[in-house]
Structure formats: C-alpha cells, structure tokens
C-alpha cells in the first residue's frame, strides 16, 4: 500500500498554488491586451492625425495637393448615404420584426425566415457589395450613386436592425397589450399605440448601432466603385459620392507614395471615430434612460 509522503504532497501543493496564481495573471493580461491595443491604436491615430485637423480640412474640397485637401465631400456623402440607409432599414427592419413577432404563426415559415436572417448576418460585407454592383449599379442602371450605395448598405445592416427590433418588441410585457385588447383595440391599433411606443427605445438603440456599422463599412462601397477622383459635393441621392472610410482607404494606399497622406488618413479616422463615438453614446443614453419598461 502506498502512503502519501507529506513532503511530496507539500511540494505538489506548492506547484498547484503557484500555477494557479500565475494563470490568474496571464488571464488578466489577456483580458487587458485588447484594451492595450485599443489605446495604442488611438494614440497612433491621434498623434498622426491631429495636426492636420483644422477648419479648412473639415470644410474643404478634395485636392491633389495634400496640404489643401479637405473632407467636406466625404462628410456630406456619409450624411447622404445615411439619409437613404436610415429610413429604408427602419421601415423594412421594424416591419419585418412586427410581422415575425406579432402576426406570423410560429412554425416552419417563421423559423425559416429566422434562420435566413441569421445566415444573412454572417455573409461577408463584400458579397453584399457584389450584389449591389450587379443589381443596383448595373441591372437597374443606377450607377455608383448615393441611392445604389445606400440600398446596398441597407441590405447589409438589415439583419441587425431586424434582430434588435424583435428583441425590443419581445421585451414588452404581455399585460400592456392585453390591457389594450381589453379596451377593444384591434391588433394594429395595439401595435401602433402600445407596442411600438414602448419598444421604441430598444428599436432606436439597435438602429443607431447598425447605422454606425454602416458609416464605418468600406468593402461594399469599394466594390460598387466609389471613384477616387475629385467629384463635386453630392446634392441628391442620384449624385455620385464618396464617404469617410473610402477617403481613408485611398489616402492609406497613397501613403506609401507621399507620406503626408498618412496624416490625412489619420485625421479622417479621427473624424470618423468621433462620429461613431457620438452615435454609440447616444444609443447607450437612449437605452439607459428610456430602456426600462415596467
């Protein structure tokens, strides 16, 4: 029969406790690694780009000379793009969510649509670009204009808006709609006057977060063919346009030729990140302030 030697046991115990402590430190470092990289990234971007940000950079036109280039066209292009994406995704996304949550009978069809939506969410954005290029730009012959880009982006973020709206609608307590039905309201009246108003904060949060995804997305627009040339400011949805990420893309590519373009790219990144930060903070404020439904 083997007896445990106390000494051996003590030594083994020490090893176990030591690896336990060591692993804790390693796990913690991994968790903070991401934050460290984020800090480095922000520091790099700000230190490279902040010098180029001034009034004329923000309000100026694109130029072939780096020191005279401005990003007003890209800012306006981003705004125009959002003017297409926001209403389209809100309308279709919320409509789909209402149908799935309130009208459709749970069964094969709903689970098919649901699976389809989650599959669409996993499709790479560049594939949406090809869809947009083929259908909107070529087949419908829209050309590479705001409308074509906006519809492509809408398809890309639609799954996110649908899922967020569904969750918002699902979280509305049952007794609210029951009370409405009890007063003799019809289904649509209940949806219109009870469910949607209470679900609005959740829907808006999801919509804003998905819009910020669309603002930062580049790949589909590259495929659609946003020109690197100097184009006039867009004035309608049928105008050609450029957006902030596209400008970052072209300037980053140019940076290997002329070093100053790296500063312009960094400065544009600052503008883009500040925009996204404001949008995301708004979403969080809406969620915290109006999110609780009794």
């Amino acid at each position: 029969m083997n007896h445990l030697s106390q000494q051996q046991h003590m030594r083994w115990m020490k090893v176990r406790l030591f690896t336990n402590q060591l692993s804790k430190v390693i796990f913690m470092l991994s968790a903070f690694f991401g934050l460290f990289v984020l800090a480095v990234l922000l520091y790099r971007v700000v230190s490279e780009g902040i010098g180029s940000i001034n009034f004329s950079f923000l309000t100026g036109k694109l130029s072939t000379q780096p020191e005279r280039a401005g990003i007003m066209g890209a800012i306006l292009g981003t705004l125009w793009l959002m003017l297409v994406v926001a209403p389209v995704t809100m309308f279709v996304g919320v409509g789909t969510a209402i149908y799935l949550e309130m009208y459709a009978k749970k069964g094969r069809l709903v689970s098919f649509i649901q699976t389809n939506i989650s599959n669409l969410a996993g499709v790479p954005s560049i594939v949406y670009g090809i869809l947009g290029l083929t259908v909107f730009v070529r087949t419908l012959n829209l050309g590479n204009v705001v409308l074509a880009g906006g519809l492509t982006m809408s398809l890309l973020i639609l799954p996110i808006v649908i899922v967020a709206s569904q969750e918002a609608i699902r979280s509305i307590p049952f007794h609210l709609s029951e009370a409405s039905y009890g007063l003799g309201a019809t289904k649509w009246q209940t949806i219109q006057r009870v469910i949607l108003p209470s679900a609005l904060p959740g829907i808006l949060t999801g919509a804003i977060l998905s819009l910020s995804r669309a603002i930062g997305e580049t790949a589909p627009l590259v495929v659609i063919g946003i020109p690197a040339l100097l184009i006039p400011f867009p004035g309608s949805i049928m105008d050609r346009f450029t957006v902030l990420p596209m400008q970052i893309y072209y300037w980053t590519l140019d940076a290997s030729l002329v070093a100053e373009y790296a500063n312009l790219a960094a400065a544009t990144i600052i503008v883009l990140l500040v925009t996204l930060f404001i949008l995301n903070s708004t979403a969080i404020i809406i969620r915290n302030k109006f999110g609780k439904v009794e």
Partner: protein
Amino acid sequence: MITIKDKSNIREMIEQNQKSNLLRRKVERLIPIFLMLLASLSIITTIGIIWTLLSETVEFFKRVPLVDFYTGTVLKPLSQNPEFGVLPLLMGTVTSSLIAMIVAAPIGLMAAIYLSEYASPKVRKVVKPTLELLAGVPTIVYGFFAFTFVTPLLREFIPNLQATNILSPGIVMGIMIIPMIASLSEDAMSSVPRSMREGAYGLGATKLEVTRRVVIPAALSGIISSFVLGISRAIGETMIVTIASGSTKNFSFDITQSMQTMTAYIVEVTGGDAATGSTVYYSLYAVAMTLFVFTLLMNLLARFVSKKFREEY
C-alpha cells in the same frame, strides 16, 4: 336626452361608424399582408445573392473548366495568356485566417476565462464594454493600423518582411476578432451552473483546475462555435488584407511575403473596372461564390456545434 328629432342623426352616426369599421377592418386585413411582404425581403435578398453569384459563376465555368479553377496554382487574370487558378487566393485566405486565429483563439479564450471566472462584477462591468469598443472600430481603421504601425513594428524584428505581407494583417485581424471570441465564450462559460464549480472546489481543486477540468469542458460547444465564427469572420474580412497584404498572387507558405486573399482579389478586380463580360469580370463571381460558400458552411457549422453538443444542465 335623445328625442325623435335626433333619430336621423343617430342613424347617420351608426352608418358612419359602420363605414369607419369597414375601413378599419380592411386596414387590419391589409397590414399583415404588407408586413409579410417586408419580411419576405430578407428571403429575396438571399435569393438575390445566390442567383447573382450562381448565374455569373456558371458563365465563368463555361470559359474556365471548374477543375482548372480549383486546382490551378497560378492566377494571372490580366496577362496575355490569362490563367485562372484559385489556389493562390485560397492560400492567402487560409493563411491570414490561421494567423488571426493563432492570435485570437488563445487570447480571446483567456480573456473570457478572466471575465467569467476571475473578474469581480465591477471589473467585468468596465472591461467587457470596453472590449466591445474594439469590435466597433471600423475595419478600415484596422487596415490603416496594420499598414502604418504593425508592419513597420514587425520589421524591426523580422528584417526581410515585405512592406505588404500576410503576417501583419493576420495579426491585426486576430486582434479584431478577440472581442467576439471573448464575448461568446464568456457567455458559454457563465451559463455553466455554479453547483458544478462548487462540487470541484469541495474536492479541493484550485481555481485553475476548476476552470480547466470543469468549466471549459462544460462550455466547450459554445467555445468551439465562437472559434468557428471567428474563422468565418476572418475569411470574409476585406479591408485589412486589401490594404496591408498587397495584391501579389503568391502560392507559397511564406508569411513574410505579400499574399492576396479572395476578398482582396474581388476589390482589385472591381476597382480595376474590368469590362463587363470579360473572363476577369466573371472570375470575380466565381471567387465570391467560393467565399460565400466557405463562410456559409462555417456559420452553419458553428450553429450545428453549439446546438448539437450543448450540455444541458
């Protein structure tokens, strides 16, 4: 008081009410149909994607045999005697995704372990959303970061690293995927019941032993599916590799060289204004189809793993 005089008024009221009820009933009947049309848009999108890719891919395979495409190691779409072999692109995609996973899988998993098992609720409440900020950074920004910072940094240690190479975007893609793996794995680990941990503690196990022998095996399906989703994300990532890995169609294992991925090829071809109807133009769709099938399979696999092998407690 209603007098005889008002009778006609009442009749009017009833009629009006019936009319408006009729309208309301019509609206009630039309709304679901209208909403169903909106909901079917997501299915139309899927059909649109598949139809677009498929019809042009078929056209491509009429010109370039399917076997040549999937076994060819040379891709020269724009040369005098063009050759269309997709293997260089597959190599670039697989290599960059592998590098990304070598970075993201261990760090993401360990971060998840820290958040789920070690961190106090207070720390978790700060670290988790901040980590998710990392996931919200646009990929073009990561591309800039890879090209202007990570590559020059790596060149300090690896002198023969090219200015555009597959290593640097691979690493940066890994960093991009960390929050996704951390967050999904953490969800899986948090749902392991506390009683299982307590049982192991009662037997004298240390925290590390509990994590390794109890929590991770119990949450394995969720962890693996988060890895698979990470790979799928890396395969479909476009801007980071386009900017930082260049457009050399190299069929090699040398990660210090420029390699083109499937996504970067699509960008190159569409950016180059390939004439509609040319073989180069159709090759775009064949590559996109391959990419689409790859990521779809990965996503289905992730869902299969997390459903099939989930341990129910």
